[in-house]
Each structure stands twice: as structure tokens, then as C-alpha cells.
């Protein structure tokens, strides 16, 4: 069922077609148009949004239903499964984050399950959903939301905002900007630097620490995006191989289960670690 076999497409066209989001935006005259939106910031990637929100809704409904019917007695199979996930997240949070914050654990749960589900879309053979969409008259469809940098950046920037918020809240503006960004890693007081040179040391520290701070959301989102994008690209390339794709697809899919899980776990763990760093005074 590979679209490459339709003949009209070259391999390059096939790959590019698969890597294009379904977009909608307003043109200069104010009309809503599909797919000719490059360069327009106000375009929306409809496929990424729809799939991520659908998966989020699925998880919310599932979890809230389990939560509503949960019993302390003998749990059902689904409740037991959700409990395992919750306990896993709770242990991860407790092992890393020692402050008091009612938001970290639910945030971690949301992040890990949601990213996992979005990553898991990668295991649906690359042509199935686009083929159905094509039959329904939709030109482009990218089914894995985490291969869209908008999605990963949105999540990592949200985490970044929380990092800044809690850094300022816990340490105060002076404590965070001066104490954490300017007096680290080279502390002029400990090094015995004369007062006159302090501004230079502090400026050096500030540049270094700011880069390190900005690297957090950037690496968080690009790691996830890069892994999933590369995995998706591998699936697309394998899909070009004709019958040979069957064993290769199987092999890559099995390996990809690991990546899917690992990336979701890493995203959650780093979120917890960054937020616990924001809560701890150095």
C-alpha cells in the first residue's frame, strides 16, 4: 500500500509529502487557506494539534474514570495498571524532588503519559492514516505530534516558564539573578578576587549560566523532537523499500518501542530535575 508504488511520486516527493504538516492559516485577504502557509507565524498545524489533543483527551478520560471508580479494595486490571504508572511517577518525583509542590507530580504524570502516547503514534505504519486521510480528501497528514517541533517546544517552554517562575519565587529576584546566575560557577568571594574585578567575573558567570539556563528548554525539546523525527524518517525510508520493508519495519518498530518509552521517561525525568533545581538554593 506504499504510496511510492503509485508511480506519480518520486522517492523524494514521497518523503517530503510525509514530512509536511496539514496547516491552516489566513492569507493577506483574510481568507482561511490550507497548506500554503510557510512563513506565516499564525498558521496552525492541524494534524499535530488534533492528534495531541485527542491523545490528551483519551488519557484524561481514562484516568479520571479510573480515579472516579477507584477502590481501595481489590483493584480491577485497568486500575492496577494506572496505579503502577502513578506509583512509578510518584517514586520518580519523590526520589528527585524534595520540596513541597502539589504540581510537580501531576505535571510529570501528564508529561510522561502524553509524550508516550504521542510517541507511540510512530508505531502505526506510516502510510495508514495518511492514506485514509487522502481518501477523505485531506492532502497532508503527519500523525506523530512529537515529530513537530512546535509541540515539543511548547512543552519545554512551558516547563521553562515554570523553572523561571519557581526560581524567582523560591530564591527571590536577587537570590536567583545574583546568587545563582552571577556568583556561579566562579565565586569571586571564595576565589579572593579584588572587588574591582568582581563585575568582570560576574559578567562571565552570568553569560555562562544564562546559556546553561537557556540550554535546558532547548535541549529538552530538541532531544525529543530529534529522536522522534529521526525515527519517523527511518520508518518512511524503510517504507520505500518494497517487500524488503517487512522485516526491516518489524525490527525498527521493536527498537522504536524502546526509544518511544525512553524519550517519554527522559522528558519526564528532566522536567522533574529542572524543577527541583529551581526549588533548591545553591
Amino acid at each position: 500500500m506504499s504510496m511510492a508504488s503509485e508511480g506519480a511520486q518520486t522517492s523524494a516527493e514521497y518523503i517530503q509529502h510525509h514530512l509536511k504538516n496539514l496547516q491552516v492559516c489566513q492569507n493577506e485577504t483574510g481568507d482561511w487557506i490550507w497548506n500554503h502557509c510557510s512563513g506565516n507565524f499564525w498558521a496552525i498545524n492541524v494534524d499535530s494539534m488534533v492528534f495531541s489533543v485527542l491523545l490528551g483527551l483519551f488519557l484524561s478520560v481514562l484516568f479520571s474514570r479510573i480515579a472516579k471508580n477507584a477502590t481501595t479494595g481489590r483493584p480491577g486490571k485497568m486500575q492496577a495498571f494506572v496505579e503502577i504508572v502513578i506509583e512509578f511517577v510518584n517514586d520518580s518525583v519523590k526520589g528527585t524532588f524534595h520540596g513541597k509542590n502539589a504540581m510537580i507530580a501531576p505535571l510529570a504524570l501528564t508529561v510522561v503519559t502524553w509524550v508516550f502516547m504521542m510517541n507511540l503514534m510512530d508505531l502505526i505504519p506510516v502510510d495508514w492514516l495518511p492514506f485514509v486521510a487522502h481518501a477523505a480528501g485531506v492532502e497532508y497528514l503527519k500523525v506523530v505530534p512529537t515529530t513537530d517541533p512546535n509541540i515539543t517546544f511548547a512543552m519545554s517552554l512551558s516547563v521553562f516558564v515554570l523553572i523561571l517562575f519557581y526560581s524567582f519565587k523560591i530564591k527571590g529576584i536577587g537570590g536567583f539573578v545574583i546568587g545563582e546566575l552571577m556568583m556561579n560557577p566562579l565565586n569571586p568571594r571564595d576565589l579572593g578576587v579584588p572587588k574591582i574585578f568582581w563585575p568582570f567575573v560576574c559578567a562571565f558567570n552570568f553569560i555562562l549560566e544564562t546559556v546553561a539556563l537557556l540550554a535546558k528548554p532547548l535541549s529538552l525539546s530538541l532531544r525529543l523532537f530529534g529522536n522522534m523525527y529521526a525515527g519517523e524518517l527511518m520508518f518512511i525510508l524503510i517504507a520505500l523499500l518494497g517487500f524488503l520493508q517487512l522485516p526491516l519495519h518489524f525490527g525498527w518498530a521493536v527498537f522504536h518501542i524502546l526509544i518511544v518509552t525512553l524519550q517519554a521517561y527522559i522528558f519526564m525525568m528532566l522536567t522533574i530535575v529542572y524543577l527541583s533545581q529551581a526549588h533548591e538554593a545553591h
Partner: protein
Amino acid sequence: MDLNATLIGQTIAMIVFVWFCMKFVWPPLLGMIEERQNEISEGLAAAEKGSRSLELAAVEKTKLLDEARGQAREIIDQANNRAGTIVDEARTTADGEGERILAAAHAEVEQEVNRAREELRGQVAAIAVAGAEKIISREINASTHQDLLDQLAQEI
């Protein structure tokens, strides 16, 4: 691959889902898990307490049984002693009574014999007087020889 408003849309979606999870998923589920953990540890503690009290009860039971056995033995011993005493007492009483009855009988017999002897003595005296009267009725006056007759009656 350019960044666009999807960023904002996804941020809003994430805020909503995290808020939802914070409000409706995490607290009830974790609370439930912790409650169950408490229940399990309480159950285990209760079970341990139960088995400990069972052990205590077994010890108590043995003690009570031993005590009861001892008491029973004591009671039986007492009863045996008492029975022996009662039998001895009865025997002593019976012996005493028998001797008393025997003595009374002897006394009565003796009395009877004495009485009979007195009677006989009187009758013999009378008979002797009557005989002597018949024999020597003419010359012997009973009243003048009374002292002689009394002496005779004494000698019989």
C-alpha cells in the same frame, strides 16, 4: 518545520491537561493508593496482633488446664480423705453404740436376774415358812420364830 501558532495551541492544551490531572486525576488516585497502603499495613499489624494473642491464649489455655487438673486432683484427694474419715467415724460410732447397747442389755439382764432372785428368795422363804408351818404348825409359832426364819431366808 517552522515554528508557528501551533506552539501556542499546544501550550494551552498542555496547561489544560496538567490542570485537569492536578485537579481530577492525581489527588484521588494517589489518595486512594495511600489509603490502601494504610489499610494493608493496618491489616498486617492486626494479623500479627491476632497471632500473638492466639499464642498468648494457647499459653493461657495450658496454664488453665494445668490448674484445673491440679484442682480436680486436689478435690478428689479431699473427697477420698473425707470418705475415709466418714467411714472411720461411722465405724467408731457404731462400735460405741454396739458396746453401749450390749452394756445396757447386760445390765438389764443382770437386773432381771436380781429381780428374779429376790422374788425367788421371797417365794422360797414363803414356801419354807409354809412348809415349816405345815410341819410344825401346832407347836411352832411363826411370830415367835421370826428371827430364825429371816436368818434362813438370808442364807438361801
